[in-house]
């Protein structure tokens, strides 16, 4: 697997750091390959200026939430990048909406880091 660029979107700096730490354990991903965004609007701006191989996003965020972000990435940017939603919101309505908007996977917080790496490496290998 060559070098991959990832975008981690979460308003919690603590959680972003945890994800970055876990993802750098994957082959071909270093700290410099991971870009962080503090909300959906920040993520959208970053996605307009460069391409990513995978996006991991929270749902509940200020400015632009994760579900809306997925919708806009698919509809406005016409970007087919794999998107993984990681949220505390486990209700069926949220999961359905996320998948309907175009997310590839919906994971729940608190997350199992080995499971996260499994999902990410699977999507990056596609």
């Amino acid at each position, binding site marked *: 697997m060559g070098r991959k660029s990832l975008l981690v979107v979460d308003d*919690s*700096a*603590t*959680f972003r*750091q*945890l994800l970055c*730490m*876990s993802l750098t*354990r994957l082959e071909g991903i270093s700290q410099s390959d991971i870009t962080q965004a503090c909300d959906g609007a920040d993520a959208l701006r970053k996605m307009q200026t460069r391409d990513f191989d995978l996006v991991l996003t929270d749902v509940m965020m200020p400015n632009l939430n994760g579900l809306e972000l997925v919708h806009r990435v698919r509809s406005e940017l016409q970007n087919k990048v794999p998107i993984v939603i990681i949220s*505390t919101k*486990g*209700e069926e309505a949220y999961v359905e909406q996320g998948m309907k908007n175009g997310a590839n996977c919906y994971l*729940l*917080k*608190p997350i*199992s*880091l*080995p499971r996260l790496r499994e999902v990410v490496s699977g999507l990056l290998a596609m």
Partner: protein
Amino acid sequence: MSQRPEDILKVFSKSEELLDMIQRGRAFTEELMAENERLRYRMVQLEAERVSADEIHKREAEKLRLEADLAKQRLEFLDRRFHEIENENKDFAQRYIEVEEQNESLANLYVASYSLHSTLDPHEVIDCIKEILLNLIGAEEFALYVLDEDTSELALAGYEGDPVSALHADRLALGEGLEGLVAANGEAIFALGASDTGEVCACFPLKLKEQVVGVIAIYKLLAHKRQLTDLDHRLLELLAGHAATALVSSRLYAQTDRKLKTWEGVMSLLRER
């Protein structure tokens, strides 16, 4: 009795034929005897060969039996080793899972402690504690009380979820309610498992050495989270120590900063005069 010469010649002729027949019979008999001798010799040879072949076969059979015994022993040994290695493999797989869990635990603990000590702003420390409780532990409703040293009361510093249903009051006296009791005793209280509605009772003191500086009470876990895991307990233990240090440090820094600014203002006024 007189015989005619023709008769005599006839008798001679027959006797020569007879003699010839006898000679041929003799030659045939000698041939038979020679053949008999040759066959007897051959029979002795074959008998000897048969005995030799039997010996060889016996030896071969014995050799094969020994080889079969050795192969059986080898097979048993390999079978034992296979089971031993299979068990070792299972053991390694189990240990790998344990190491992965430890790694996960360490990553969570590292990130949590790093975040707690990365700021000297009391509000940011409280936000960080809330992030840890929500994102790393999976608490849906919780409250953070900080001990007010002036009044010896617990003051509500932050919460998540519905404050009306979960929290009793903005301020609690020591010994009042579960939170006050934990603050007074300095001992944590954990429920064994979440109920069907996800409600849980985990209340633990934030301690700086033996001094209680606050209390965190978890009233409800996220719906998909059944109970607090070992990792959660370790994170909560870490929070109990590090959150207390971070809270006290940030409060002291904020107080000192306020005093410094006051003194700087006073000095500025004095310089102007």
